[in-house]
């Protein structure tokens, strides 16, 4: 088994290395294109990556602020680096007329491997995960510790975002209805990856002297490889991961979010906030400051309460719209299946639809990136497997439930009225689909988008903090310095337009899935061992239920 695994790994590594060098070569010839001018092509444009689809929210993104001298200087300095990093990370190989980004291939192969290796844990762990979240196995003596429900809710708040609303619309536009099928498939496979990374996050976390905990991929990469006599390599990729998550937290977890929140507010205000980015930025930075530095828990709690409420509210009204489109449902579902196999009208056919679907799913549920593992390792439990089990519900909720519902809202609207959205793309398209039936919906939708952005910022501030403390230690002054920096970037996100910096941040976040999944392969046997031991103990009654026996 080990031999086969190593062979597969080596093969994959070789492919990756070749691809990266090919990207270099290709880079010499092609000119970087502007990320903002052609948003929809951006999905296919290696130079733009993650952020591009969402710029479709206000297509095409208007310059939020005048290009000041500072912006221009910074952009000029960073653009070449951003272009290079972006092209390497999102390098694509042409397959039968479609373009397959290697990083997506890497994530998907990992997800398939873990699903098979762990005997379809995403299916057989599902019922047990629900029982854990319900508190059936919660020992009353541990009351007061973070519950499984709380761990799940926190992690879901971090992943459910604008992507669930706008990203799906882009997937359907570019990949056709069939992309939805592959999106669901990828969500299903991603459940296994999440399971592995969250189990490891808890198993290899660090308990600090003050009884708080720090965990995540950087810790399991370092300690996991050290256990396998590869200490130097483990240290290297641990630090690499920490840098990636830190920069990612300032970019897609921060500037990009505040930027999108501002765009959203401005859209609803009908452009009334034009030129007031600095004000919106300062207000948002102040609120984030109050939560992460001021420790004003009430604000965080209010948001963390509203976000799940918003998610439920969104799904509920989405279902209402789908039911209002009742006559179109059979055709819309038919399109999803036929599109998945034929890929009619999609560049690259069925394969093109598949790639788009898989890509969207990964961007949405973050399985394989390792971020959720940081959130889960904060939970004190004696059984790391239980955290893994609970976490496999995240891609289910995020991708299989919420994204699918969005896809059906759009799909049924398309069947009823193919031209319903006009020129609208991204979130505007989703918004238009709702508006067809519920004219007032765009306003709460924009409100939800802003809150989603806010909760994502709070979650990512923690992920970045853990990257920071991994690099610079747990000193309180250092942590405060990081948090101040984070707040400054919230404001910056609305004030300056730092496209290339964001591109680097996007690229790095996807780049860290390379060492992360590599580590997961090496540590998968440990997870399997833990899983078997845990399941045996549940079977024998050693781990017993306290409720709903």
């Amino acid at each position, binding site marked *: 088994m080990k031999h086969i695994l190593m062979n597969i790994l080596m093969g994959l590594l070789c492919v990756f290395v070749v691809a990266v060098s090919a990207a270099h070569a290709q880079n010499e010839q092609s000119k970087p294109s502007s990320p903002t001018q052609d948003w929809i092509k951006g999905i296919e444009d290696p130079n733009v990556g993650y952020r591009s689809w969402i710029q479709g929210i206000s297509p095409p993104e208007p310059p939020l602020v005048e290009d000041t001298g500072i912006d221009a200087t910074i952009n000029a300095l960073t653009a070449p680096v951003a272009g290079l990093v972006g092209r390497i990370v999102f390098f694509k190989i042409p397959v039968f007329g479609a373009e397959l980004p290697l990083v997506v291939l890497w994530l998907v192969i990992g997800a398939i491997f873990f699903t098979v290796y762990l005997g379809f844990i995403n299916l057989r762990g599902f019922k047990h995960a629900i029982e854990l979240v319900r508190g059936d196995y919660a020992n009353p003596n541990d009351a007061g510790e*973070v519950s499984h*429900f709380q*761990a799940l*809710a*926190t992690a879901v708040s971090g992943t459910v975002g604008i992507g669930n609303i706008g990203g799906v619309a882009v997937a359907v536009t570019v990949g056709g209805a069939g992309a939805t099928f592959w999106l669901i498939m990828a969500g299903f496979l991603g459940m296994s990856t999440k399971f592995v990374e969250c189990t490891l996050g808890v198993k290899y976390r660090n308990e600090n002297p003050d*009884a708080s905990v720090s965990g995540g991929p950087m810790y399991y990469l370092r300690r996991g490889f050290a256990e396998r006599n590869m200490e130097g390599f483990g240290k290297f990729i641990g630090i690499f991961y920490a840098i990636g998550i830190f920069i990612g937290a300032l970019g897609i977890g921060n500037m990009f979010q505040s930027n999108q929140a501002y765009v959203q507010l401005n859209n609803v205000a009908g452009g009334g906030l034009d030129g007031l980015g600095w004000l919106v930025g300062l207000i948002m930075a102040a609120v984030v400051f109050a939560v992460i530095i001021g420790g004003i828990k009430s604000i965080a709690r209010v948001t963390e309460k509203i976000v799940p409420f918003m998610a439920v509210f969104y799904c509920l009204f989405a279902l209402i719209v789908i039911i209002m489109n009742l006559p179109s449902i059979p055709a819309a579902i038919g399109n999803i299946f036929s599109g998945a196999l034929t890929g009619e009208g999609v560049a690259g056919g069925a394969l093109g639809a598949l790639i788009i679907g898989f890509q969207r799913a990964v961007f949405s549920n973050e399985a394989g990136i390792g971020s959720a593992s*940081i959130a889960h390792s*904060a939970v004190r439990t004696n059984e790391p497997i239980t955290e893994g089990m609970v976490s496999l519900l995240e891609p289910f909720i995020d991708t299989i439930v919420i994204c699918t519902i969005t896809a059906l809202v759009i799909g049924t609207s398309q069947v009823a009225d193919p031209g319903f959205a006009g020129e609208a793309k991204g979130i505007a398209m989703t918004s238009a689909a709702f508006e067809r039936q519920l004219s007032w919906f765009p306003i709460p939708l924009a409100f939800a988008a802003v809150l989603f952005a806010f909760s994502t910022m709070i979650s990512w501030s923690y992920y970045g903090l853990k990257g920071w403390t991994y690099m610079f230690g747990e000193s309180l002054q250092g942590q405060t310095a990081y948090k101040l920096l984070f707040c400054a970037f919230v404001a910056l996100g609305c004030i300056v337009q730092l496209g290339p910096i964001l591109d680097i941040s996007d690229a790095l976040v996807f780049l860290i899935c390379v060492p992360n999944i590599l580590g997961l392969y090496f540590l998968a046997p440990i997870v399997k061992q833990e899983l078997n031991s845990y399941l045996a103990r549940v079977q024998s009654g050693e781990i017993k239920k306290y409720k709903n026996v």
Partner: protein
Amino acid sequence: MKNTFLLAVDGSPGSSNAVEFATDRAKRGGARIVVAYVIEWSPYTFNTPEENAERHKRREEELERATSSIVKPVVAKLKDAGLDVDSEVRHGHTAQTLIELAKKHDVAQIFIGRRGASGLKDMLFGSVTANLVQTAPVPVTVVP
């Protein structure tokens, strides 16, 4: 015949009346007392990742504070009165947790002070005592 009382305390004046009353009853009947304090907590709230990371530390602090400032003085007082005393500090929904503790220790009855919260707060949130009286499996003595 079970001869254990559960005495729910919260550090309020009503609760010290309950302590007096339960002490008196226990002395007469030679009963054992379990002093219980519940820290209101729900497993279904929404937290930030940072709150989750610090939760264990906070829990220890909460238990320590409740034990030293509320439960220990009561236990000392009961012991001085010559009673057999046990104590429990737990997180959870107050009434539900008291009932769980009552079952766990197989108590004959529960003593609780009336906190006398009135007005708007009571109308909105109801009272722990009323909740307990309505759902407890054993007699509940509410001490004003």
